[in-house]
């Protein structure tokens, strides 16, 4: 057995040019395959990281997203006094009224091309920060109450004109100065502008909230809280765990990326299988006499089959490993695109996971197996006499 395997490996090495062309081809396919998964994984990771399990978010019934949701002050008051809302040590409800709107803003580095996208602007109350403990101001300062000052998420500050520290952005008939830049462990909030909720409601002439977020008094009692509030005829609302709410926002875009990426890599995969087949048929044809000799020496048909399959699988494994390693470096590439679920721009990175690496390897092995099977069968079925007689 070890003898057979070392024979296969030596053959892989002996035919360097053909082997490396095949490895490159498979690597390319696995790279595209992994890249698509990493992109969709990166998007959902970013969104999942945005919410907290112990927080709940309320939006108007069937409005799907905060942007489309409208909640009135009296609804907010009812929910705020619900026993499901956690109360802090100082007796205040851990509860934040927020407004979320989109503004269209030109992207940086695209001056003159008119490339612009929608930036979410979140009006928050003081407790919004306490509810998201990973929010930290890394540059500048907080806004002063009652002024037209806002703070920007790291990714908005880098990606959009007028959103960097000290710059001004105009919306709602006012010029807003960015006085601080915040980070939140790479979550979706970094793609938002934050300002004071009352100021923003005033500027947009919108005396309503978009969403209410509160900390659950007892996170295990979420189902009961949900049932109680959703059944309250005065409210007409939907309530979700914050984490789940944000996770749901990657549905459309993730599906699109994965569907297109997987379709494309399957097509490419077919091409790579054909490439592997060509290589393996050539390997079999070039070694017909060798095969005859091996059979004459007493190696069985199944040993021959095994030898060629191992060779094919080795090539595909190398291709797969190459693709995965190169794809891994995509982690340093940041992507910024519109999330069609929310109609707002979101920045995220390609994200590798062990699962994706395993799927990538399995995918490459499948290509090797399918591509190598028929040639191996042909090798195994050669008649000893014919094989030895070939030139």
């Amino acid at each position: 057995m070890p003898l057979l395997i070392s024979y296969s490996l030596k053959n892989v090495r002996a035919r360097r040019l053909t082997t490396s062309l095949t490895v490159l081809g498979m690597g390319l396919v696995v790279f595209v395959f992994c890249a698509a998964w990493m992109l969709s994984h990166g998007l959902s990771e970013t969104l999942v990281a945005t919410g907290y399990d112990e927080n709940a978010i309320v939006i108007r019934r069937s409005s799907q997203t905060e942007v489309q949701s409208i909640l009135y002050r009296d609804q907010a008051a009812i929910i705020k006094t619900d026993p499901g809302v956690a109360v802090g040590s100082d007796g205040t409800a851990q509860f934040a009224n927020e407004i979320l709107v989109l503004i269209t803003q030109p992207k940086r580095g695209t001056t003159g091309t008119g490339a612009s996208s929608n930036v979410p602007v979140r009006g928050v109350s003081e407790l919004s920060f306490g509810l998201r403990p990973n929010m930290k101001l890394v540059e500048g300062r907080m806004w002063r109450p009652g002024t037209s000052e806002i703070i920007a998420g790291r990714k908005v500050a880098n990606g959009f004109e007028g959103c960097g520290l000290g710059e001004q952005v105009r919306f709602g008939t006012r010029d807003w100065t960015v006085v601080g830049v915040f980070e939140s462990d790479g979550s979706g909030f970094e793609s938002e502008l934050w300002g004071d909720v009352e100021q923003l409601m005033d500027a947009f002439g919108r005396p309503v909230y978009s969403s209410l977020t509160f900390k659950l008094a007892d996170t295990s009692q979420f189902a009961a809280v949900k049932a109680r509030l959703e059944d309250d005829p005065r409210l007409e609302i939907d309530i979700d765990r914050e984490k789940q709410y944000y996770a749901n926002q990657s549905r459309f875009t993730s599906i699109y990326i994965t569907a297109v990426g997987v379709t494309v890599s399957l097509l490419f995969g077919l091409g790579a299988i054909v490439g592997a087949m060509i290589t393996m048929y050539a390997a079999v044809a070039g070694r017909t006499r060798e095969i005859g000799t091996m059979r004459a020496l007493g190696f069985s048909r199944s040993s021959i089959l095994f030898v060629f399959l191992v060779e094919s699988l080795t090539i595909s494994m190398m291709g797969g490993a190459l693709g995965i390693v190169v794809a891994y470096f995509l982690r340093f590439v940041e992507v910024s695109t519109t999330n069609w679920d929310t109609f707002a721009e979101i920045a995220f990175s390609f994200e590798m996971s062990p699962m994706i690496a395993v799927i990538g390897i399995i995918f490459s092995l499948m290509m090797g197996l399918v591509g190598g099977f028929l040639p191996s069968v042909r090798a195994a079925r050669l008649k000893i006499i014919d094989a030895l007689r070939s030139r």
Partner: protein
Amino acid sequence: MKLLKLLFRNSFRHPLRTVLTILGLAIAIMSFSVIRTAINAWYVGAEASSPNRLVTRNAVSLIFDMPLAYKERIANADGVTGISLAQWFGGIYVEPSNFFAQFAVEHDSYFDLYPEFLVPEDQMAAFMAERNAVLVGQKLADRFGWSVGDNVRLTGTIYPGDWDFVIRGIYTGKFETTDENTWFSRWDYLDERMRVETPGRAGRVGTYIIQIDDPSRAAEISQAVDAMFENSIAETLTETEEAFNLSFVAMGSQIVLGLQIVSAMVIGVVLLVLGNTMAMTARERVSEYAVMKSLGFQSYHLVGLIAGESMLIAIMGGALGLLISVPINGVLGVALSMMFPVVKMDALTFIMSAVISGGVGLIAAIFPTLKAVRTPIVEGLRIVD
């Protein structure tokens, strides 16, 4: 003629290998065509737009609307020959995954501005007569099996509650690029109910569509319209319909860019598959080429033979790929109809595929040709395979 025959014979000396190579190329070219078609789908909206139409929206972003009062003022602006209005409805049909574009439009003016939507006269009359009437595109009607007279209920995401509509007409597109996946309900139906339920949200308009008769004045008229509402609570942004549609493409620009990169990688795949085959072929025929050279054939004969064979295989692969991509793109169009109203193959895709096939055929031949030309006759004859 003789040369062609020789090329053909040479190509199929290893029939299995050549068939596989052609198959590999065909698959790659087909992927290229499919990806290109998926990219084009983003731009169809911009292509289908008319230079005679401008779109006015709230300058802050599309989620903000404008008062109905703007209509009269815009209509009276210099150069404006017609005006209509639309509001994104955003309802859910049974479940959110059944997404399609829905607009509440001003029924008596909208279709005058969009002559490319063809509606039978009696159906248009029915649409005019009833507040909750709806016109839907042929493809949308096919997707959900709707026919004229069907009652359809949508759940509002922006406008709360259940909304009952009745389909009174099915429109078809005048051009191939016309969107047949859209739902048009009546703006007055929406407004009437808003007036009763939330008066603060009545009389609001998402976009005004302006007709102008002189496209060369588009920029000037846009500026004049925007100037009218400067410093109001709802400042406007007016642009040509094409620019308006391209702004959606810009939002997904990085996805489009990614697709473009992947489509370029196809060239790599084709090159690897064909290059591999040609390298094998050349290796096997070293002694043969030496014989030819000693018979007096010149280097350019060898170049012609090898490059010709490579091109022949590449072009057969490319042609087969394009052939199978036609039905596949049809399937893609149905699969993507939720996001993209029109998905079709364009002539440029054909041309690019042909150029790539031919170009790759040439490039794949370079290395084997050099080897064949450079190997001295004696050395070539000495090699016994």
